[in-house]
């Protein structure tokens, strides 16, 4: 399941997306007409140097930020014309998030954090699926703990479980291992990859770490708000070389 069947519609599709920050003289164009598709059931990494627009692209794709021009589809929904409320519901029902840090609500236990998106949308819980996800990330003994009682790696695994448990169309991960040591980072990345392989999950991950990117099926490279190139079946060295060529 490393590639998508030819002709199947992508899970996420961006067409000619332009994003400006500021107004008048101070306008900075963060995205210069980006067009990119993210295949269903694939693990895609977005890479690029600082300021390349990779986080902006992810925020726009996930409906967290608005675009100035262009279209973005998640599944069969064109999201650039949705109201804030519709966008909120879309995120709630069809998108999962894993952020670099501050992923969890400090007042809730691990289990409550995992179930939060389901409860927000009022969906009923599939117990078996929940058990499966919890066991896969190995959180069973920690479910009743609050985030402050968990290590950084454990916190990120709770975040992963939360993203997975609602079976979203796509999970957006923003530097999910940025704050972790290499061992914990590897655990989280392996887990993300296996969720793509075994559960057919679609994941889009922003990272600046070539090792993290090498866990993906495909890496998209950005520079100055434009897609420059992409790499399939990446290795850490291959990613590093591409990055170097981008910066030169």
């Amino acid at each position, binding site marked *: 399941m490393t590639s998508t069947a030819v002709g199947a519609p992508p899970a996420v599709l961006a067409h000619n997306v332009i994003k400006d920050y500021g107004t008048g003289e101070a306008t900075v164009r963060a995205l210069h007409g980006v067009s990119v598709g993210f295949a269903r059931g694939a693990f895609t990494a977005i890479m690029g140097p600082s300021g390349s627009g990779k986080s902006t692209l992810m925020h726009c794709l*996930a409906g*967290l930020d608005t675009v100035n021009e262009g279209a973005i589809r998640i599944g069969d929904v064109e999201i650039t014309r949705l109201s804030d*409320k519709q966008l*909120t519901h879309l*995120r709630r029902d069809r998108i999962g998030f894993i*952020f670099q840090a501050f992923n969890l*609500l400090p007042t809730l236990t691990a289990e409550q954090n995992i179930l939060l998106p389901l*409860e927000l949308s009022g969906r009923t819980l599939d117990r078996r699926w929940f058990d499966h996800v919890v066991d896969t990330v190995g959180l069973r003994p920690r479910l009743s703990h609050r985030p402050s009682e968990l290590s950084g790696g454990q916190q990120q695994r709770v975040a992963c479980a*939360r993203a997975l448990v609602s079976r979203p169309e796509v999970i957006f991960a923003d530097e999910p291992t940025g704050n972790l040591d290499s061992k914990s980072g590897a655990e989280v990345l392996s887990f993300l990859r296996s969720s793509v392989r075994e559960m057919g999950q679609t994941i889009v991950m922003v990272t600046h770490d070539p090792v993290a990117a090498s866990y993906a099926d495909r890496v998209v490279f950005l520079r100055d708000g434009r897609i420059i190139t992409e790499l399939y079946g990446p290795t850490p060295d291959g990613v590093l070389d591409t990055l170097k060529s981008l910066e030169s």
Partner: protein
Amino acid sequence: MLKTTLAGLRAHLLRLMLTALAITLGVGFVAGTFVLTDTMKAGFDRQFTASAQKVSVAVLTDDKKIPDATLRAVRAVQGVQDAQGLVRGDAALLGKDGRAYGETPTLGMSIVTGPLARYTITKGRAPGGPGEAVLEKGVAGHTGYRVGDTIRVLDKKGTAHSFTVTGLVDVGVDQEIGFRGAVGFTEPVARQMTGEPGYVEVDVKGAAGVSNDRLRAAVAAAAGPSYTTVTSHGLAKRLAATSGLNVDDIATFFLAFALVALFVAALVIYNTFNILIAQRTREMALLRCVGATRGQVFRGVLVESVVVGLLASVLGVLIGIGLGYGAALIFDSGSGVPGGSLVVSPTPFFVGIPVGLAVTVLSALMPARAATRVPPVAALRTQSEGRVRGRAGIARIVVGALLGVAGVGVAALALTATPGKGPFLEIVAAGALVFLGVIALSPLIVGALSGVVGGLPARVFGVPGRLALANSRRNPKRAAVTTVALTVGVTLMTMFSVALASVRTTADNNIRDHFPVDYRLTAQSGPDDRPIPGAAVAHLRADPQFSAVIEVRTASATVGGRKQDVSSVTQGALGHELKPKISAGSLADLRPGALVLHDDDAKMFGVRVGGTVPVRTAHGTMTLRVAAITSGEESVLPDILLDQSDFTRSFGPKDPEQVYLIAGKGVSADASRAAVNKALRDYPAVRVSSAADIKDQLSKALDQAFLLVAALLALAIVISLIGIANTLTLSVVERTRESALLRALGLTRRGLRRMLSLEALIISLIGALVGVVMGTALGWAAISAAVDDAALGLPVGRIVLFILLAAVAGVVAAIMPGRRAARTSIVESLAAD
């Protein structure tokens, strides 16, 4: 360091403005009180002076009226341009219902025109002859008479005369007229109506060029030594002294409430500084890293509080000037107390600014000390957000428990003592102790209650509800202080309404138990007591609608060496219709040679049942044996009760001063009322009151008292709401990332706002509940300690209203913070530090 602090202040201006608002309002209250009382004082002085200035010299008398001869003598004095005698006496105005107006007859007085006119005709003109009268504007307002109406007024003999109202007169601050109301006539008519043989005062206008002092000497010589002759200046002083208004009492009353407002403001400031410092941990640590000492950090925070306190206090004084003036205008329009022009003495500044500054700086002391404990290394750590902390320390629990136990102990002592002023003050002290204990234990109480109060919203409102509950418990200390600020206001509000309700219940019980009559007829009390005409009583006795007609006669005698009122009642009613509370002896033993005393009098004379008391009357001295001792307040029975035949022998047959009527079974209230009115048609001066009327009057008085107290406490509650808004705003800032995460995960803007509203709701409900419980307990304890046989009342409706209002207010306080949280961009917040 000062520069850094000031730069910080500028940066946090908005947050500090909210803090400042709490102090500003508190100081505004204090300053406003001073401005109000200064303005009122000046207004009085001006009015007295203005009234007195029309007069050069006045001849005053204490008791004896000034005869015409004296007036003529004064007029003949050289240098006197004009002299006018003032007539004052009873002239009962009849209301539109045909019955005499007021508890006491209205005053009939002469209206002087020309240069010596001391009173202002505000509408129409002065009376010009027989058949014309002016009404004092207060009594006109109460009775509904207008210029052009025909009024009826009783003369001294009780005969009604008709007059046309030609105008309304403003007499200024004359306490007697203000209380009784007055009808003004030309001098001859006034003398005829009141039957007064002379004048209460002679006002003299000097001729041009004659000094008041010289004139005074000349007039005094002419008037003779039996009267006091004063100049215009002396008259103004006398008017001020006898007005009976003590502006200082008003100031004390208002300042007590201002103190409450300031206390609440102090809590709000303490909390705000605490939160601000918690949020600026990294800033503080960075300062320490670059070499700031603990002392410098401490002083930095204090300087901040000084600047905030100073600005807020100055603003508060300015607002207070406006408030005070506004209040003076309200007093002016409401009760004829002069508002006049605004008077601002230096007092509001000298008191308001230091008080506001002191409260602010003292409240910031503890937070400032906390700031010094931030280690430099904290600058390097990522700030862990939303720490769930603030468990109550052992010391706090011990102190809180000790205070609580001490308070309850004092209260128990007070409640077992004989009710009175002492135990009441003990209850006040106990209340303060318990309140301090509750403040100390508030984190525990809030923690425990949030589960109870928040349980319902958490269940009904799903995720926002549950998050709100969790958020309200995450920092119990912070929530506790926020809550306590509201609790102060709600406690006092509840305490007052419970105490007033208890007074009402107690009075109702007393009326029911000891006033088992349907109507009470009394003569309008005045300088000349007019008894109830025997013919009217006979008429009532003949009416089959009344099952009992009980007559009470009163006369003056010397009892145990003191001048006292002694009474007799229709003896057959004792123990049947009239059942006073008896603490010793038996009413059946009231026979010739015996008397019944109230407990207070028995104590005063030092006698018990079986003991004797000498009663001296015009017919000699009787030695009467005490048959029974009555107790309780609001008794319908006179305090010193003689046997009927003893009374008649001593004072002769006379008409009763009071008559109690009991309607027969099955007689409707309307029918009995009609019968009473019919019997008394020819006797308009007899006052009729029913138990229902008395309850009504009491209710009105209590409601007014409550409204005044509620209005004054409202400010403390408003300040506590600012505190809630403040805490929430700062929490929103603190939880920026958390809110962004929730929004990213699919919580709508509305959901986020609802979450904050619910958190505010939980906090305010806890505050209200604690306040209601404490206020009820305190109110009951205070009344039980102060009054004998107190019956406890519970104004359920009002209490429910308080809780609802607190809930609504809490939600309102969350509006601004909620909007702010919802408006924030998710992406920016996620990136926020």
